[in-house]
């Protein structure tokens, strides 16, 4: 039973995620390589880490979405397995259509590396089981393309189905994320047959211990690991 951290050639937060799992939670982490056709044996949850999967040329995550490992991740997700996409991982999940919508360039055209205050909009269940609904947490963002967008119908559906996972607390006059323009302030969403696929722009692995300015991120990673270990929900 372990969390598979997928390494695309340009992933650069894969080691950080593995470290947070091991040091922060004492949970095992296994590495999955982008060219693999199967997840490692014993995988109970999956992380698509941040970075620049294939250089982020063309569109962030576009090429990664087509890599062999993503077919395996898709099968795992379709069977209800918990999958967490962080930053570039979120972009990959959208490009692979495992989550709806897309991430555009930030509205000011700039890369932002800073702390973001978030509201957990869908706490209490699944991977977000360790959060209270409406709980506020702080996680850092580091992205140039985190401007979440989808058509109005999709956004309405996300909201009505309770699939907005995280929102930026700071919004502009239109209600969009002040930092990057994300529609309706969306920082992360849920998908998959059982809300088992989560994508978010902020980096939980960077807040996984007191020496890293806080441990809010561990709460999410703990939820991910636990969601994969629920009896009766063991994946293929």
């Amino acid at each position, binding site marked *: 039973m372990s969390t598979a951290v997928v390494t695309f050639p340009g992933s650069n937060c894969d080691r950080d995620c593995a470290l947070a799992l091991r040091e922060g939670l004492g949970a095992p982490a296994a590495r999955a390589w982008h060219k693999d056709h199967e997840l490692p044996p014993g995988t109970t949850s999956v992380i698509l880490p941040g970075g620049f999967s294939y250089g982020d040329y063309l569109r962030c995550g576009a090429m990664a979405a087509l890599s062999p490992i993503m077919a395996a991740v898709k099968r795992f997700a379709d069977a209800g397995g918990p999958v967490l996409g962080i930053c570039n991982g979120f972009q990959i999940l959208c*490009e692979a259509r495992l989550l709806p919508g897309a991430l555009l360039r930030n509205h000011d*055209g700039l890369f932002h590396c800073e702390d973001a205050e978030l509201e957990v909009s869908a706490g209490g269940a699944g991977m977000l089981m360790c959060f209270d609904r409406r709980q506020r947490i702080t996680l850092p963002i580091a992205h140039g393309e985190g401007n979440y967008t989808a058509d109005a119908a999709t956004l309405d559906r996300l909201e009505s189905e309770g699939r907005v996972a995280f929102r930026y607390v700071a919004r502009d006059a239109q209600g969009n994320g002040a930092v990057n323009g994300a529609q309706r302030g969306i920082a992360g969403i849920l998908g998959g047959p059982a809300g088992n696929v989560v994508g978010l722009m902020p980096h939980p692995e960077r807040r996984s211990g007191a020496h890293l300015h806080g441990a809010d991120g561990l709460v999410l990673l703990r939820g991910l690991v636990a969601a994969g270990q629920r009896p009766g929900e063991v994946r293929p």
Partner: protein
Amino acid sequence: MRARVIVRLKPAVLDPQGEAVERALRGLGFSGVKNVRVGKLVELEVAGDAGLVKAELAAMADKLLANPVIEDYQVEVAG
């Protein structure tokens, strides 16, 4: 055969890059500028006859070059 695929953000999608360029152009004194949109131009060589090539280019765009959630594309084959 030389071909190109033009990829544009859909009209309904906000184009932050286009807005930034517009602002910068105005700042430089080009005051008559409006509705700036920035797209991508993928130029490539493909083997095969024109008809087939067009279909192949469309397939490339569908699979990789454009994201239908936010983008439209257009293929052109030279001569």
